[in-house]
């Protein structure tokens, strides 16, 4: 029986088996687990700086309509974005009306995340972000298109019939809450933020663009398609994926030195670093490995070709 010729180095480099690659990825992405608190240098993207500046420049006690269109499947990115967004909103005393058109589970996921942020605030001796007074959860609206049209036409009637629990324990019309009582028309909304892992971003852009100020926080995969709307000026700010979360956390920690000629402060001496700072080193190492793997494969291919010639 003829023996197979030994593989050259080039052939070996371009045909690493799956198990080896998987083992290396597992090892590399585990590195940050052994160095908790590892801080990777960062340069925030322009779109995320715009988002941060927009949130920081809203007048205190303004009402922001938040579409929380994510659940557990994208919690690595969306969960971090939600935490960063609400940390900023809580500290800036912005009020939130939260709704979803993506998933029936999303309202409870939002409530749970606010509850854990509140635990953090209480532990730090700060006032919790109160349901009804600071935020209301409007619930799930299965028809994204119809709901977006309704918000764009008149937000003062779009959520009629929805109730949340007032401090007296009675389920009360959300329009009587401090969050929505001054919202008489769509123009009264200072900002609509869409935090999404699905196509609700496109649905919102198509129906609300030009009617309300819009900003978005989307997953990394959705970044390129949503970037189009940021470039065209339809979005005031945009955070994309885990890098976007890390950008927001970096700015919350250090502020922005120069934004159109003026500095924007951060929140020194507060807990700013969250999931973005924890997960970003892992992404960093995974990307480095991906690049190295691609280079190794190409070097192997070049070596094999040269040998063949």
């Amino acid at each position, binding site marked *: 029986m003829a023996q197979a010729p030994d593989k050259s180095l080039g052939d070996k480099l371009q045909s*690493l088996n*799956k198990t080896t*690659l*998987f083992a290396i*990825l597992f090892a590399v*992405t585990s590195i940050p687990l052994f160095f908790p608190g590892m801080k*990777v*240098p*960062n*340069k925030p993207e322009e779109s995320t700086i715009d988002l941060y500046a927009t949130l920081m420049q809203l007048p205190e006690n303004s009402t922001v309509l938040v579409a929380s269109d994510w659940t*557990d*499947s*994208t*919690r*690595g990115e969306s969960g971090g974005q939600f935490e960063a967004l609400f940390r900023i909103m809580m500290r800036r005393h912005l009020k939130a009306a939260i709704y979803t058109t993506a998933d*029936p*589970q999303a309202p*409870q996921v939002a*409530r*749970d995340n606010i*509850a854990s942020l*509140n635990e953090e605030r209480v532990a730090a001796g700060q006032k919790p972000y109160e*349901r*009804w007074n600071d935020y209301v959860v409007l619930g799930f*609206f*299965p*028809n994204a*298109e*119809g*709901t977006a*049209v*309704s918000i764009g*036409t*008149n937000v003062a*009637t*779009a959520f*009629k*019939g929805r*109730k949340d*629990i007032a401090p007296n*324990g009675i*389920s009360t019309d959300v329009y009587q809450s401090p969050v929505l009582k001054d919202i008489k028309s769509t123009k009264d909304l200072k900002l609509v933020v869409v935090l999404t892992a699905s196509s609700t971003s496109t649905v919102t852009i198509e129906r609300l663009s030009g009617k309300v100020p819009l900003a978005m926080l989307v997953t990394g995969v959705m970044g*390129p*398609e949503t*970037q*189009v709307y940021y*470039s065209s000026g339809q979005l005031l700010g945009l955070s994309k994926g885990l*890098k976007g979360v890390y950008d927001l956390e970096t700015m919350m920690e250090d502020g922005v030195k120069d934004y159109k000629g003026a500095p924007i402060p951060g929140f020194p001496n507060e807990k700013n670093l969250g999931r973005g700072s924890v997960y970003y080193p892992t*992404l*960093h190492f*995974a*990307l480095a490995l*991906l*690049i190295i*793997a*691609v280079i*190794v*494969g*190409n070097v192997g291919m*070049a070596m094999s070709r040269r040998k063949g010639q």
Partner: protein
Amino acid sequence: MDFLAQALPDNFWRHQNGSSTLWLWTFIGLVVGIALIFGLMNMPSQMRRPVVVGVTFLSGLFYVLLYFWPAPVARDPGTLPTDLVDKVGFWIEDAVPSVAQFSNILTAFLLGLGIYSVLRIHSRKLIKQQQDWAFSAVLLVCMVLMVIFGYWNWANRISPTGPLLDLQSNWKFQNYAADLLFDGLFQQMNGAMFSIIAFYILSAAYRAFRVRSIEATILLAAALIMMLSLMGSVASFWDGAAGHVSENLTLTSISTWLRDNLQTSSLRSIDFGIGIGALAMGLRLWLSLEKTGAGS
């Protein structure tokens, strides 16, 4: 028109939360809705088609009118319409929230249909002990458990004492059970499934990203620049070094240029094509020119 005015305290379309009238109408609505669906399903196709075509046209017509009919400008709550055009404009604007509610309720029925379909398919598989019936049993048990504890937990949270449940110390058995099922099991399994993607992306990128042609080289170079720009340490180092020579040579500038000029324009052209396609398909569906699905 009162029947569209959901803002009024009590009317045909709106009753006090938790009142017996509300529960009665909810029950009647559910029964009528289910009866309508089954009625449509069992209707002879020659009768079903005109019904579906008519309802589709009227539903679509509302949103077409909303976009094209002159909308009231700077309308205050007390403003009265001056002419017929104004009257129709006011009527359309007032109807939007109610139509949105109708569309939300109709879409919610799809969830019910989905549950019915899952139950029917997997129950049959289980009863007849067809191949892989054990998986169907697991699915049905999980679904029933999630529905029971999910609703129990939800009912607690919308009750007057609901806000107290934001603190874990106030939880009861049902809240712990819902948390275990959703956060403890479902969420972790979902996370595990998604993390597997990283392994396949690495394997696929290693094998597919090869410099075999000019096009592949351009794609590879662009991908490498974009990936490097996402790595904060590389971007900081590169920008620091190249920034002294020219601002245009920084990694941030190069990746921004790629994104704004190549990526965005390509995606816009794709979006434009999709938009035209969706417009044509929307028109065909609205006018029931699409033969499949319109009750045929």
